[in-house]
């Protein structure tokens, strides 16, 4: 199995006086065929991490390797050829297309950046990409405002796929969509990875998305990875970190006979300030010790393919 992405001690700090540690010492790897879900709540740094990998921002420290090549801090010129193998599907479904061009034109534009083909071949590839995401190729003549939210997101995925990339970073691909189409889109993403050998980095706050698409999970909190786990069946029962457990307990069950959110005892509310040192979850953690306040627990392998950063 080929390693697609490997990060080592990746950091991104913002601000000079009040330093915000958006991404703090993250080491992760994504293997080909093992799509990774990066889970985190707002402000956890998951989107920043995706942008660092996608070359849309420069890291403050650390390394990123894509297909073995170090890409941190490279200019857009050297990075551009790599984008052929690494595409991004953005969150907002409608806003990611220039309203002045048709969907077809927008997709061809990406293709034209990398491949020189005869005119008819471009059209052919666009039709193929649209068909792959379950859209009628006729829609290529429409403008973004004439598509529904679900169609937009499909077109968005089509644009990412048209170059036949190896890695697709999906930043909250379904959170701006209505519930009834979320499942469709997630199933579509899964179908695509099985058919066309694509690997995803799925950035999401919604844990229920994970099993549809991914084969590994990383849980992020305040810029740090607290848990990494391969296999996405019954994640809820297998997670070990107190934060991961809290996350899983917070998902509504969709079963009025098994209400649990309202019965669970209340826990510490979210905090306003980042902790100066130690484990970022210390103030909300029920099993916090003095050691947690002093040093950040290292990632320790508890069982094969399952690492947890906790002293518990």
């Amino acid at each position, binding site marked *: 199995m080929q390693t697609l992405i490997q990060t080592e001690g990746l950091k991104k700090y913002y601000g000079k006086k009040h330093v915000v540690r958006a991404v703090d010492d993250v080491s992760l790897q994504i293997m080909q065929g093992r799509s990774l879900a990066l889970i985190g*709540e707002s402000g956890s740094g998951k989107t920043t991490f995706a942008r660092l990998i996608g070359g849309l921002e420069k890291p403050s420290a650390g390394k990123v390797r894509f297909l073995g090549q170090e890409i941190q801090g490279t200019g857009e010129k050297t990075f551009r050829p790599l984008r052929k193998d690494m595409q991004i599907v953005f969150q907002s479904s409608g806003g990611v297309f220039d309203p002045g061009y048709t969907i077809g034109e927008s997709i061809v534009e990406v293709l034209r950046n990398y491949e020189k083909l005869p005119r008819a071949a471009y059209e052919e590839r666009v039709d193929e990409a649209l068909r792959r995401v379950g859209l009628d190729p006729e829609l290529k003549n429409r403008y973004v405002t004439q598509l529904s939210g679900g169609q937009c997101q499909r077109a968005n995925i089509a644009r990412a796929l048209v170059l036949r990339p190896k890695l697709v970073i999906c930043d909250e691909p379904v959170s701006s969509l209505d*519930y*009834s189409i*979320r*499942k469709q889109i997630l199933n579509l993403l899964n179908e695509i990875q099985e058919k066309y050998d694509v690997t995803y980095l799925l950035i999401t706050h919604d844990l229920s998305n994970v099993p549809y698409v991914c084969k590994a999970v990383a849980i992020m909190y305040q810029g740090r990875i607290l848990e990494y786990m391969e296999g996405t069946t019954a994640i809820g029962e297998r997670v070990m970190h107190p934060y991961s457990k809290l996350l899983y307990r917070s998902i*509504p*069950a969709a079963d*009025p006979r098994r209400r649990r959110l309202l019965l669970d005892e209340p826990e510490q509310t979210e905090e306003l300030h980042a902790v100066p040192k130690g484990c970022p979850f210390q103030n909300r953690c029920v099993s916090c010790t003095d050691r947690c306040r002093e040093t950040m627990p290292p990632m320790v392998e508890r069982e094969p393919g399952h690492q947890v950063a906790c002293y518990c």
Partner: protein
Amino acid sequence: MDYRQTDELSIENLCVDFDTPEGIVHAVRDVSLKVHKGRITALVGESGSGKSVTSLAVMSLLARNGSINNGKIICNGTDLLALSVKERHALNGRTFGMIFQDPGAALDPLFTVEQQMTEGLREHQRISRQEARELSIRYLKAVNLQEPESLLKKRPFELSGGMCQRVMIAMTMALQPDYLIADEPTTALDVTVQKQILRQIYQLCREQEIGILFITHDLGVVAEIADEVAIMQAGQIVENGDVLQIFEHPQHAYTKQLLNAVL
């Protein structure tokens, strides 16, 4: 179950039209709905189904091109549509409280939490600034916010989304409304925060006998919190009933489709 007429908010055959440049849009068509004190009625629908318009009609907050063409809104036995606009707006706050999806935008960034809370209180009640402040602190504590005294001095942008939403709930609750309209109150929040807010809303409903109209598109949340459920599609209510009945024996095809789509 039997309820006295004076203890419910009842929407009957409500129709709301919008006059747009493209023609008249029937946003809400013949919607009937009941909210009982001390119970939570969830109004479920996807974007554009007319669920928010229904709530705005109750609050008399429709955009200028919107009009109620038919139906009644009866609150505690009085028909609201027979009242003047002024009288209806006077009900907002005391009779109806409302919390929104984006709590950050519902609070004015220029003023401190204290200024906004006490202003709302003193508009509706004859109390001194000091009394209003004490009342504010009491309600902030009631929604589980720590250090309410220092919180009062903060401005909305210094708070997290969850805290803003809790401040909104405290503000609304301080006026002791009979009914609370919650329009997607947790959609913009993280799941761990959502959980706390849901518990808050649930407690308010039960302990203070407030009737809650909970608007959402998330059936997971509905299953956790609602007593009654109304499913809305394209401006109409396609199915309503007890939460157990809806989840276990859905009748309408659209309800089944929604339940199927739950992740």
